[in-house]
């Protein structure tokens, strides 16, 4: 039987080092649109957490990096997995969150 080989030998932790049952990493994809995209400089971003954040936490994190963003907090709605979502929505790994300025289609 083949022995499993660590895929990332450069990792600082050895393959056999005891790993505590850590809380799983939560990876979230974040999307910005319209003026928010221009402001943050990226349409799409992937970010990892060790504790489940809420959408509010996520926004605060980006607002800390891009102070201009904070000004728009009251005129932004958020979505989680393509549904409008409340700011206190907890996030799970694999979620796609988008921050949406007022819509102006038509």
């Amino acid at each position, binding site marked *: 039987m083949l022995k499993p080989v660590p895929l990332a030998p450069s990792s600082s932790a050895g393959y056999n080092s005891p790993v505590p049952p850590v809380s799983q990493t939560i990876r979230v994809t974040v*999307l910005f*649109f*319209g*003026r928010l995209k221009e402001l943050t400089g990226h349409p799409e971003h992937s970010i990892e957490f060790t504790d489940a954040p809420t959408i509010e936490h996520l926004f605060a994190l980006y607002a800390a990096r891009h102070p201009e963003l904070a000004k728009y907090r009251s*005129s*932004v*709605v*958020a*979505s989680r997995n*393509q549904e*409008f*979502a*409340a*700011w*206190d*929505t*907890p*996030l*799970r790994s694999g979620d796609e969150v*988008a921050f*949406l*300025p*007022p*819509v*102006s*289609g*038509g």
Partner: protein
Amino acid sequence: MAKLPHDDIYQLVREPIDMAALARHVRAPDDGAMVIFDGFVRNQSHNRPTLYLDYEAYESMALAKMREIGAQLHEKYRIHRVSVVHRLGRLEIGETSVFIAVSAPHRAAAFDACRFAIDTLKRTVPIWKKEYFEDGAVWADGELPPAPAATPRAKPAS
């Protein structure tokens, strides 16, 4: 989410919208009326001459929301076929940005449904337009879509 009739059309496109073809599709022989909304690029905004518009969308969510509107139309009104098409990218003055057609056995339902569709689209579908003028560009004033104020308590995330 309610199932949509397979002959409805919901699309985001980057080319000019073929209104005649869509109208022919929506206009079924067993109907008696069709109402069309043709939204196109105005040559000015707040009395400032517009050069052109640039539309962008959160495409997957925009399509889902457009289909949701379709489902609501079929639930609320006695209508037959629906077509909702929005164009993205750069649009020149006079070009159609949004096209909605609704057919029905009788006109009242078609009028009401078409009006509901464009009003709801403008409020809830994640699409944005940037207006370009001689001396710069601005994101158009929009509407903030209604979102839940707080998550229902003790409901596990699904």
